[in-house]
């Protein structure tokens, strides 16, 4: 079966990857300090935060998407405020998709990072402090390298998870080709229209890409192993 993609399908793939890269990057940056805090805080309310962070893992994506739609739409708290300030609301926009994906993939980034930071412990940081390293310096020269497997795992899980995202996107993104139509929804459309050949082409590309990605990551993971640190 020859694989040929329509311009619209190519676009859908492009939107999918753009979405995965952007939301994963932002998530990593935001979650690193949050996971650090979660890994080391002795605050008793910590369990509430942990439960909240894990919630997107348990909820049906449509529930998540539904509430986001309400929140980001023109009458929602966020969307409405934006409208009143002269901006557009975020439902059916790429920005809305990014926000949705980030919440959807949050547990997949927080979990590995928190675990990695817990494994790193605080002693190495105390040592680094007595060796004149400032807090930021300690993060980049000690925490980041020791937790690199955690970062790698978080990045891969978030990326892969976003590739396969469907429910949240269909709720808040609509299905606007070139803007908010992602590959998973395009496949669904093709199947609905009985165009199995186009569905096949897109699906196969996703399978091959995802597999190559995971293969590369597990290979790297082995190489990245920090001796003496379990993470």
């Amino acid at each position, binding site marked *: 079966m020859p694989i040929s993609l329509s311009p619209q399908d190519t676009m859908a793939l492009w939107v999918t990857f753009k979405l995965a890269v952007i939301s994963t990057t932002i998530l990593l940056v935001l979650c690193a300090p949050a996971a650090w805090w979660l890994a080391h805080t002795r605050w008793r309310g910590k369990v509430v935060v942990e439960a909240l962070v894990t919630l997107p893992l348990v909820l049906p994506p449509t529930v998540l998407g539904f509430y986001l739609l309400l929140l980001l739409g023109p009458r929602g708290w966020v969307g409405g405020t934006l409208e009143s300030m002269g901006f557009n609301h975020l439902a059916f926009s790429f920005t809305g998709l990014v926000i949705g994906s980030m919440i959807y993939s949050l547990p997949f980034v927080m979990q590995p990072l928190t675990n990695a930071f817990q494994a790193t412990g605080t002693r190495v940081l*105390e040592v680094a402090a007595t*060796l*004149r390293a400032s807090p930021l310096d300690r993060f980049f020269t000690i925490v980041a390298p020791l937790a690199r497997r955690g970062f790698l795992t978080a990045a891969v899980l978030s990326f892969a998870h976003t590739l396969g995202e469907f429910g949240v996107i269909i709720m808040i993104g609509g299905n606007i080709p070139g803007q908010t139509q992602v590959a998973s929804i395009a496949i669904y459309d093709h199947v609905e229209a009985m165009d199995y050949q186009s569905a096949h082409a897109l699906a196969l590309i996703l399978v091959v890409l995802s597999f190559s990605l995971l293969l590369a990551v597990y290979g790297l993971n082995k190489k990245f192993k*920090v*001796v003496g640190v379990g993470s």
Partner: protein
Amino acid sequence: MSIQAKFHLERGDFTLDVDLQIPGKGVTALFGRSGSGKTTILRCLAGLERIEDARLQFNGDLWQDATFFLPVHQRPLGYVFQEASLFPHLTAKNNLLYGFKRISARERRVQLDDVVSLLGLETLLTRYPDALSGGQRQRVAIGRALLTSPQLLLMDEPMASLDVTSKGEILPYLERLRDELSIPVVYVSHAIEEVARLADHMVLLEAGRTLAQGPLQTLLTRTDLPLAHSEQASAVIEGTVAVHHEPDHLTEVTFAGGSLLISRQQRAIGAPLRARILARDVSVALARPDASSVLNSLQVRIAEISDDPHPGHMILSLDVGGQTLLARISLRSCRQLALEKGQTLWAMVKGVAVT
């Protein structure tokens, strides 16, 4: 006085309340049982523990008071932790250089080569921490701290996590450090042999309070303190290597009160030497014991006679040329010899540990 520290902390049922004066040179031991607050004090000195009610001054510089707190990474100190805590992702060499790279070039008084030869690290540099033994890791950790050219070295029981062999491997290096560093060292320990071997000055801690602080020799032999009454009660005599008696495999050490013969030491004539003498290894006689297998007899004067917790024992503080020796003798001997303060006696020393 170079370090003045007042720390007050209430945490659960632990109270820390100390006011310390630590001299600007030599090794000061923080000595006490576990739970006495030694490590907490050391962490407060470093700034790793931030307690509210504290005042800390180092060489006239304020490090902490009610409104000011100098962060750890801005304090010119080196810290050696109980376990070596090397960075697992860096080689021994890069561990050593971690702090070194973070101080300005003109502050670098200690160079990599100095530390490598001082601590015998030549063959370890390219290895990762997991390929080093416990003793080797601790040597790298000590070197790493020294390479920041610290003005104060803090050591938290650096040998506690090591087996006997590794301890034996580290101790000579620590002694070299003591002799070659011109900076003050604060050394936490609960092992009196270690303290007697390394320290010049001592802070005696019990349940978060200072029982006493002062020169090591004084505190070891003060009979109002628990040390002089423990099973390990001992005195330290400081002397110099005078002569080696080769055929007998002995070294003679002289000091103001006389001389001691000890097993042959690999030290140069004229080198300073500390001898630790346990109270239970000293017995006394009214006349010079001529026919005895005991090698060392010293003429001493009784400075004090005090009770021992064991009802059948007495502790004698004996002045020997300005230094003090302790002797634990039986109550019965004390009575039969009619010992009294000021009396001149002969002390027979059955064992000398070189420190």
